[in-house]
Every structure is written in C-alpha cells, then in structure tokens.
C-alpha cells in the first residue's frame, strides 16, 4: 500500500463520516420508558416476560427483570441502538452504590463503566440489593 493510497483512504473515511454526521447528526437512543426495554428484550430473549424494571434518569440505561427466569438484564443505549446483558454470576466485576447512583463494571470489556442515576437513594438500594442477590 503506497502512501497516497493510505492517505486517500483515511481522507475518504473522514469525508463519509462527516457526511453521515451532516445528514443524521449525532443520534443517541434515549430510553423513555420500560416498554422500550421490554420490547428489546422480548425480541432477543425467547420467552422473556417483563417484570420489575427501572430506567436511569438520563435515559441511557435500564435494569429489567425477566419474570420467566427471574434474571435481571442491563440494557444500555449505544449510539442509536440498545445493547443488553444478562447480569448473572461472573458477569460483573464491580457493583457499588452512592446516594441515588449505582455503578456497574461488567466483565465484558466492550462495556464502559455504567453509572445509573435513579430518582432517589431508596430505589438505588432496592436494585443494588436485588443485583447482589442475583450475583451471589
């Protein structure tokens, strides 16, 4: 690969990404209700039935229980799509709560540290306890 081809390719990539931004902007999925989360999980997990759940105040993440299996799922907005993970034993490296905020670090290194801000500390404490029980 010569230098001109190399530089031309990078310039082409920059051009296309710039055009993409100009045409569509920087679109970010915002979870507005648990039904967004339930629909995504129902599509991905055969037999999924939405149970309790909570959406973070910024609409970037949510936790949702599957009534069928009792499992808890983390649902995160990534770009304009949602990504889900079942939170079971071995899936979390760290879990900590502070005030209304819950921090999760997943074993899956493609996830950045998740910080879910809830409406109040009581809600955070309930979900932290549920997650600890699920992971035990």
């Amino acid at each position, binding site marked *: 690969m010569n230098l001109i081809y190399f530089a031309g390719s990078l310039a082409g990539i920059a051009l296309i*990404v710039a055009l993409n931004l100009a*045409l*569509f902007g920087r*679109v970010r999925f915002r979870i507005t209700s648990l039904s967004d989360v339930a629909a995504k999980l129902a*599509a991905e997990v*055969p*037999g999924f039935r939405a149970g309790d759940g909570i959406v973070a105040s910024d609409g970037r993440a949510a936790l949702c229980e599957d009534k069928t299996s009792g499992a808890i799922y983390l649902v995160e907005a990534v770009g304009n*799509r949602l*990504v889900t993970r079942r939170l079971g034993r071995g899936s979390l490296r760290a879990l900590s709560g502070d005030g209304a905020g819950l921090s999760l670090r997943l074993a*899956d290194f493609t996830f950045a540290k998740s910080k879910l801000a809830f409406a109040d500390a009581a809600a955070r404490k309930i979900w932290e306890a549920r997650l600890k029980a699920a992971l035990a």
Partner: protein
Amino acid sequence: MMAHWPNPVEIATPLFILLVIAEMLAARYLHRGEYEARDTAASLLMGFGSTVLGFAGLFLFLAMAKFLTPYRLMTIGFSWAALIVCFVLDDLAYYAWHRASHRVRWLWADHVQHHSSQHYNLSTALRQPWTGALTPGLFFRAPLILIGFPLPMLAFVHGLNLVYQFWIHTEAVGKLPRWFEAVMNTPSHHRVHHATNARYLDSNYAGVFIVWDRWFGTFVAEEESDKPRYGIVKNLATFNPLKVMAHEWIGIVQDVMRAKSAREAAAYIFAPPGWSPDGSRDTSDSIKARWAQFRAAQSSAE
C-alpha cells in the same frame, strides 16, 4: 503473470464510496435504511485495517500455494471456461469457509467483526476482520490450487466474489425477481444471514450463488412478518475498532486459561461460538431450540 490480472477490489473501490454516499442520501431523504456516524466510522476503519493487515494473509496464501503447486492434478491455462469454473468453485470454497466460520469459534473469532454492527448498510460490507492470518481459513481454498487453477486467476475470481458481496449489504433494495432470488445471493438473503432473530440464525452462508444454501440445507427466506434485527447474539457496547477486532480472541484466551481439562480447552476453541461446559451460555443451536419450544408453547396455548 500476476500483473496482467486486474485487482477487482481496487478497481471497484471508488464505486464503493459513491454507493455508500448514495445509500446514505437514500436513507436520509427516502427513509430506506439507516446510518449512525460512529457505527459507520467503526466499519470503515475496520475495512481500512483489514486492507493494511491483509498482506499477512496474502503472504501465507502464497506460501501455501508454493508448497501445494508441485502436487497439483493438472496445469490449467487461461480460457473463459476455466475462468467460469474457477469462479464457481471459489464460491463453493467461500460457502464452506463461511459456514465453518459460524460453527467453529476459532474461525468465528476472525469473522464476528463483520457481524458486529447493529446496522445493515453498505458500510457494514466494509467492516472486515484483521486477523485472518491467525486462522486456518486459507486452507479452504487449497483444493483449487490442487486442481491446478493458476494463482492469478484464483486471486482475480476471489476479488470478483468480494466485489459482488458488497452491494448485497443494504436495506435499500427489497426482493428482486424470483429467478434472480432463486440462484443468486441478494440483499434479502443476506439480510437474513446478518440477522439475530432465532429463525434466521446460522443460515444463508452463500457468497455469490445462493444455490449452495438451497442444496446444503442452510437456506432461510426473509419473512415480512419477522423483520431482521442485525448484529450478534451478544451485541457489543463499543465502536472502538480495536475492541471490536479483539473481543472474541480475548474471550477465547480467557476461557482456555480457565479450562479445567485439555478437552474443555479444545472445545472452547473448536466448538461452536457460545459453547460452555455447563451449557450456561447461549449457542445459536440453544437459542433456536428455546425459540422453537416457546413457539410450540404459544401455539398450544392458543
């Protein structure tokens, strides 16, 4: 000799760029398809990296060819008939490699990147892996060398095959005339291949001719009632090309290091993606089985 054969991918690259731009405009103004800037950037950078690092794979292929050439059954010169037969057989070799790449985790580690976008557009076609030289994938084309096809012809038809596969990565094209859908790989067939809906998992491995899937029992038609959802069973929460490239390789290394026996370690490498000793993870087979069970329960309840 090689210099006399054009490189189809190099010739088609400007067309690829123009088509990506055209599809982007169609997505914006005609609402046919979808683009997301960071996803597009990741796909294009993956394609760029694949071109830069592709030389390692080419070097290994040439080394294999040098080793095998003395054992070839015959020496095939140029003729249009030979070129057509070579193109068809190369596509069959592609089918075999592609099917194995979805069923053997070692090969999947170098193919999962191509499936890792939740979008399906022409930029996805360019989301290519970088680590082909770390897999035995090139051996799938060894029979073509042993038959006696000349290397430049093999390189040329393989390039044509890749060029063909570019345009089928789109939501902008619906179903095509029945005769074409019956024989050729099309956007509809390939959308199914990229889908994670249980009904569509592990199907439509064809490169150019969909007849391989029809003959070998891996064909699934796209259904209006089940719109494809793209990506992988455990979608990635990143657009970082390095993480996209490495995630399955790292997963294999971590699993092998935790394995309790040599047999278990081997299964982590050679068994289908998602295999685990206690069955606690999902493979495409287990997802399909659960889906079938769920559907059966649903229909008996109705």
